[in-house]
């Protein structure tokens, strides 16, 4: 039954990609941002599906038990603050500048050769690592639920999402994301409700879990103090620079819709996280062999214990949906970085729309295959890999993005210094120092801010053209509505 449900789900996703293909074949606007026509309802679910990864649903039960509820909510609570930053500080100015991607925005705001090359490369590296974490999740699902080998699971799910992304571009990803977002919320909530009624008294189960697993409730139980702050800052700083999230800001029908979608998605995201961390994790302690299981396998061990086969199949489809929607969004970010930012802008400026779309399709397959190959050797905690990838991205982009939008004095050279300073300091901290998990970003972002500000202040200020661009992006913000 589980296999049938999963195969049916795969068929639907590819069918959606095939239908979307007709609309996007020859237009880069349709292929990369779905013609800027996605409404608030669809965009909210799509934002959610993009944000809620396999880790959000599947890994967070084991992570909450062994690394603690405070760490899970530190990661998760950074997200609404990040969404608030994206809604208030980023969404409108970026829409007004009117470009497809983060490198597009940097290009018109800074017009700097270092940034022009470095930003798509940073996106490629971070997105590929992020994808590896997601694909590893699909291998775990295949092993635990379908009886496939890890390798088979990674390859089959990898090929499916690469197929529907390459067929229908961002429109296909968006339609699939809506389906996947709804599936995720409905199934997680249903699983949570069934879990509550599967125990005699949920309040007692919760208290017993906190007693038997002190790491579940306490700060510092499983991780050093700075890891909690690092996890929070990573989520908060990452939302507004994640390329697959920013693409959704552009694909929205208008700025108001983009802003509303961001916040509705955040409420739905909270429902998923709180269902897994506050309900499923304590109920999972009633499993007799929970200590022997790998952290990322606890979620399905619990579902096997309390759900009928039909719902287990739907739940597997929901987790695969979480994996595939995030990965498809990342793939779009990668193919856009290669075809739009590197090929069309730097390598072949006169390329036609159909050539750019063809390069995007090819690069989707290329990046997808590389991520699949890298995912064949899984790490212990998916979340740690995910945090490293997004921390790298935020260290590179957050300071140049925020200062570039809000600080009049920010220059191109300053932004380039901030981007490189953030990347290099994060990499040095990650590879050469034994720091607590998730804390490298606490070095990367301050270094990036300091470098952007210091170098901007040494030059002659931004060009008249750059100043005019940002004045127009903020023109109505000069006169905010009263109250």
């Amino acid at each position: 039954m589980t296999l049938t449900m999963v195969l049916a789900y795969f068929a639907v996703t590819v069918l959606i990609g095939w239908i979307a293909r007709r609309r996007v074949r020859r237009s880069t606007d349709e292929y990369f941002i779905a013609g800027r026509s996605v409404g608030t309802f669809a965009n909210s679910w799509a934002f959610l599906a993009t944000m809620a990864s396999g880790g959000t649903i599947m890994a967070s039960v084991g992570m909450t038990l062994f690394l603690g509820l405070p760490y899970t909510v530190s990661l998760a609570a950074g997200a609404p603050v990040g969404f608030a930053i994206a809604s208030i500080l980023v969404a409108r100015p970026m829409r007004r500048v009117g470009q497809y991607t983060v490198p597009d925005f940097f290009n018109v705001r800074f017009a700097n050769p270092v940034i022009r090359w470095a930003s798509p490369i940073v996106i490629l590296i971070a997105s590929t690592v992020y994808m590896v974490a997601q694909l590893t999740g699909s291998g775990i699902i295949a092993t635990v639920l379908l009886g496939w080998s890890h390798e088979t699971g990674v390859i089959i799910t990898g090929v499916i999402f690469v197929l529907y992304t390459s067929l229908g571009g961002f429109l296909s990803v968006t339609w699939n994301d809506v389906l996947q977002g709804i599936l995720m919320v409905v199934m997680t909530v249903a699983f949570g409700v069934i879990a509550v009624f599967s125990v005699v008294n949920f309040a007692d189960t919760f208290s017993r879990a906190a007693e038997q697993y002190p790491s579940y409730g306490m700060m510092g139980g499983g991780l050093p103090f700075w890891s909690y702050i690092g996890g929070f800052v990573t989520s908060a700083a990452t939302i507004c620079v994640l390329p697959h999230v920013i693409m959704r800001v552009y694909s929205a029908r208008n700025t108001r819709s983009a802003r509303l979608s961001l916040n509705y998605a955040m409420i739905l995201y909270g429902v998923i996280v709180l269902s897994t961390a506050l309900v499923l994790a304590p109920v999972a302690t009633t499993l007799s062999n929970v200590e022997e299981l790998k952290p990322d396998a606890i979620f399905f061990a619990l579902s096997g214990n309390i759900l009928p086969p039909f719902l287990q199949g739907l739940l597997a489809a929901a987790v695969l949906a979480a994996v595939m929607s995030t990965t498809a969004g990342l793939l779009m970010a990668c193919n856009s970085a290669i075809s739009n930012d590197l090929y069309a802008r730097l390598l072949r400026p006169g390329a036609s729309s159909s050539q750019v779309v063809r390069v995007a399709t090819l690069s989707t397959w290329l990046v997808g295959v590389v991520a699949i190959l890298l995912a064949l050797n899984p790490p212990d905690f998916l979340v740690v890999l995910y945090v490293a990838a997004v921390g790298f991205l935020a260290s590179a982009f957050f300071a140049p993005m925020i200062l570039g939008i809000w600080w009049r004095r920010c220059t191109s050279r300053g932004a380039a210094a901030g981007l490189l300073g953030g990347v290099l300091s994060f990499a040095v901290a990650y590879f050469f120092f034994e720091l607590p998990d998730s804390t490298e970003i606490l070095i990367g972002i301050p270094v990036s801010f300091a470098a952007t500000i210091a170098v901007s202040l040494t030059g002659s200020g931004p060009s008249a053209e750059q100043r005019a661009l940002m004045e127009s992006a903020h023109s109505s913000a000069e006169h905010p509505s009263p109250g």
Partner: protein
Amino acid sequence: MRSSCYPLARRQAFVLLAAIGTAAIAFLPVVGAVQLAGVSLTAWILVILMIVVPVATILVTGNEVD
């Protein structure tokens, strides 16, 4: 004299500062040491933050002219 930063609506600045400030308080070691129902107060404050911040952001950006 013109500010070196572009202006931000007061209510929006308040929501951002309140969210960041609340998180900073939640992470104070003295707050983390307090436990309610076996769970650190830090976690409960962050759970509340997850619910309140999106609603507050919708309220302060809903009337903004595009």
